[in-house]
């Protein structure tokens, strides 16, 4: 028979004010299998815990129930106390007499009776508890950082500087990300590239960082501390070990009219190209979609030009495998194109630009060398309209959230325009100005007051072209809702920041959750902003939500610390609340019939196939096995298993069944 010890806490008066705790202890003491039942003012206090420890030894208890506050509060406390007394901590359970009883009911008979029922329930459960051992898993101290923008760069450098190896993968030919495209940064107006490129170079030269550009994650398997990443190295068609990066091939390439991604489509590039002059690595790749040779089978001019014979026409994508212990997701964001806005011309007006395109116009390294000129005719626009919240905060567009950075960069754009076109006239249509940040509000005020940018609070209903002008029809809500019509030379849309393309598929590969907008979901909005729900995978930067550079860098460093903290352990200890498939003596081996429906139900890919073989090596049966590293203990498989062959430790079928039955017994 069980020997359960029951300890009822008064919690000062928090419980005893409405629950007759003496009666609870008395009645529970009469229960079958209860060896000892007492009540005490503060069970969690030192003397309280001592009572438990002494009772465990004195009565040789094989189970403990503490009737006190929520287990979410003190379960670890009491389990530790039990462990210290030599009782397996998982033989200790808590009945929630405070949050679920004394605090929510009036003093009275029923409240005490409910308290008794709650304790009884846990006594019946604990009778079925099994001693469990914590799970220990080794840690591979190498991190994978996905995405080579400022977030990935920062995270990689920070992790590498703690002495751990980092693998950084970037899907474009160069690291740098969006930050490398920016002209000047708010609120200081320092040149984006000037502050970024040294870090890019540092990444390339860091002994602890292995950089793979033009590479994408193919799959990630395993679990915290023990991931295996398969990485696709896309064929660059150029052998980087021999290429000197001289650039001769680029100059000779006959395919010159490809819209440049780096210039947001405003400039052009060649088929063999380096995305931008400061690229890291500063060596070209061949864009096979546009290359004459790959398209038509002839050309090979670059090959003839190349002095060192670095062109590799037949190079194929390569898949490599890397063992890592943690992953940092830093895949960044994207911005909506102008074609997303039918009311602003569906992308058909050349002089309606996105903010990112304007960045390129304003950038000294851009297609106009920093001069603001119209893409349509090269003229300098005399009247320019900026439309903030283009898509953002608009449920009808499916983007109800604020993209956060647009208010600031729009102010910056208008300011840059006024600095460059002195007789120009700029108007910003806005909903609200969100300038929360150090020196941000001052920056916006400067745009309005010193640079005389015309701020109109209202939305723009339509932009259309008429006689070479862009007619901007909006409303000024501060002037009593008066309609405003501006004949502009250029319109810049602060288009919404959205999740990067492919983020949904990537999330599924990694088994991390994502929000309805496909931004990756953090584990807790307040307290775990850089963790994901999948242990060992962390977030940095705008892949989690739109954010500006300082925030991104801060978050990247945060993620790096999480990785470093993880790597400070040689092995990890986890709660053994995981599912297990039963194993029996032959000839049954297990009641599992291997239908593997659990495999499809498992959110964590924790179900593996285990082959049961006879001594001669012949296959008897294939049954399911739970990977204890991957299993997070949700128990979905348990409820799903028809033959009850899989059970979850800590919430076994026997335990929950006993609880329910005891609750309803009169």
């Amino acid at each position, binding site marked *: 028979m069980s020997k359960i010890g029951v300890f009822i806490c008064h919690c000062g008066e928090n419980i005893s004010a409405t629950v007759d705790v003496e009666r609870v202890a008395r009645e529970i003491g009469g229960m079958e299998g209860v060896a000892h039942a007492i009540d005490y003012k503060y069970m969690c206090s030192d003397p309280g815990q001592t009572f438990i420890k002494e009772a465990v030894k004195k009565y040789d208890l094989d189970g403990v129930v503490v009737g006190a506050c929520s287990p979410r509060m003190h379960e670890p406390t009491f389990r530790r106390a039990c462990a210290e007394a030599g009782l397996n901590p998982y033989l200790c359970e808590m009945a929630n007499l405070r949050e679920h009883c004394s605090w929510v009911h009036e003093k009275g008979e029923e409240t005490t009776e409910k308290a008794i029922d709650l304790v009884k329930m846990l006594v019946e459960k604990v009778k079925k508890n099994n001693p469990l051992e914590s799970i220990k898993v080794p840690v591979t101290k190498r991190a994978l950082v996905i995405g080579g923008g400022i977030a990935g760069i920062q995270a990689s450098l920070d992790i590498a500087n703690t002495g751990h190896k980092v693998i950084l993968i970037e899907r474009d030919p160069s690291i740098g990300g969006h930050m490398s495209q920016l002209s000047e940064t708010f609120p200081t107006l320092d040149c984006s590239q000037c502050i970024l490129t040294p870090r890019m170079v540092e990444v390339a030269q860091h002994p602890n960082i292995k950089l793979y550009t033009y590479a994408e994650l193919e799959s990630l398997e395993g679990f915290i501390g023990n991931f295996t990443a398969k990485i696709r190295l896309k064929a660059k068609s150029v052998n980087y070990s021999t290429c000197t990066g001289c650039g001769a091939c680029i100059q000779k390439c006959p395919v010159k009219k490809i819209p440049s991604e780096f210039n947001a489509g405003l400039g052009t590039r060649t088929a063999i190209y380096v995305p931008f002059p400061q690229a890291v690595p500063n060596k070209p790749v061949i864009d096979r979609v546009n290359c004459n040779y790959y398209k038509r089978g002839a050309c090979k001019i670059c090959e003839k030009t190349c002095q060192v014979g670095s062109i590799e026409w037949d190079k194929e994508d390569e898949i490599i495998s890397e063992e890592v212990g943690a992953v940092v997701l830093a895949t960044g964001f994207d911005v909506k194109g102008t074609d997303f806005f039918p009311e602003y011309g569906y992308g058909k007006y050349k002089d309606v630009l996105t903010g990112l395109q304007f960045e390129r116009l304003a950038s000294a390294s851009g297609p106009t060398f920093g001069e603001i000129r119209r893409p349509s005719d090269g003229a300098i626009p005399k009247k320019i309209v900026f439309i903030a919240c283009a898509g953002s905060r608009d449920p009808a567009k499916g983007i109800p959230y604020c993209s956060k950075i647009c208010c600031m960069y729009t102010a910056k754009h208008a300011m840059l325009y006024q600095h460059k076109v002195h007789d120009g006239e700029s108007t910003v249509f806005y909903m609200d100005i969100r300038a929360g940040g150090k020196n941000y509000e001052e920056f916006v005020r400067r745009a309005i007051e010193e640079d005389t940018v015309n701020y109109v609070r209202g939305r723009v209903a339509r932009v259309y072209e008429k006689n070479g002008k862009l007619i901007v029809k909006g409303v000024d809500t501060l002037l009593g809702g008066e309609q405003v019509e501006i004949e502009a030379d250029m319109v810049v849309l602060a288009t919404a920041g959205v999740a990067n393309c492919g983020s949904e598929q990537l999330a599924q590969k990694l088994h991390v959750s994502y929000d309805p907008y496909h931004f990756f979901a953090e584990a807790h909005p307040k307290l775990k902003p850089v963790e994901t729900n999948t242990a060992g995978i962390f977030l940095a930067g705008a892949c989690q939500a739109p954010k500006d550079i300082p925030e991104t860098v801060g978050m990247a460093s945060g993620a790096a610390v999480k990785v470093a903290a993880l790597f400070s352990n040689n092995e990890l200890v986890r709660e053994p609340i995981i599912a297990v498939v039963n194993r029996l003596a032959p000839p*049954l081996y297990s*009641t599992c*019939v*291997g*239908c*593997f*429906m*659990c495999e*499809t*139900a498992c959110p964590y890919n924790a179900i593996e196939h285990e082959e049961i073989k006879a001594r001669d090596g012949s296959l008897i049966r*294939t049954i399911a096995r739970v990977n204890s590293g991957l299993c997070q203990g949700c128990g979905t498989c348990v409820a*799903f298993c*028809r*033959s*009850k*062959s899989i059970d979850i430790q800590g919430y076994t*079928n*026997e335990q929950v*069944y*006993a609880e329910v039955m005891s609750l309803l017994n009169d």
Partner: protein
Amino acid sequence: MEKLRERAAAILADGTVSLVIGYEEGTKRPRPLFCHDGESARKLIFDSRCFHNLAVYLTKKELVGNGRFAVTATISTLRSIMQLYVENQLSEDKLLILTVDLSGTLREFVTFDEISAYVEQFELKRSEREQAILTRIEGMTREERWNFWQEEMSHCFKCYACRSACPLCYCTKCVVEVNRPQWINPWPAPVANMEWHINRAMHMVGRCTACGACGDACPVGIPIDLITRKMMEDMAPEFGYIPGLPVKKGNALSTWKLDDREQFIR
């Protein structure tokens, strides 16, 4: 039919298979037949009276052994075979399907894709009997349905013929045989009986191919097949599965959609 016998005898003779599971004439109706040689293959029949779902035998290792075997399959049997395949219970290299199509031609299938393509042509409809009883049940109030089923359940004596006849009840240990905890009382009593049948229906969600074998098998005439039938009809459109044409991975209850119905959730 003659072709079928010849073919069965031939594949038994040349060692392609070691067993052909088919039908022979029984006492009143055709019944399952196990042919191990050409001799017994002469008894084979295959016509519209053959109602047993022979897929039930395919998961019994003691019968089919480790070698290759053939089965003469009705459409219902084929549907079950597809589901068994998805549930990792059958493999193509062990199984050969013989069937006679509507035009009377002998057909053979080796791959599950072939079976799938063939099954796809046949629509699953309520039979007259099913229609009649279901219409009656659907016209009842909830209390009437309760009383109807309680009366029916009082006849169930837990012989588990429903389970034994179902090709998809292939667990080595059924949940009713699990006794830690004893989820479902093993003795026959209306609630224990109903729990068993609700449990059976739940286990069939997204799996039942509506072959009706369970109902046919019930010795006390409880229309138990209609519980799963109705569930299948309710769930199929909701979860987008077609009985007998399962998706290759997962089933209705192991997958989900973001916009699954939830008006009933407060």
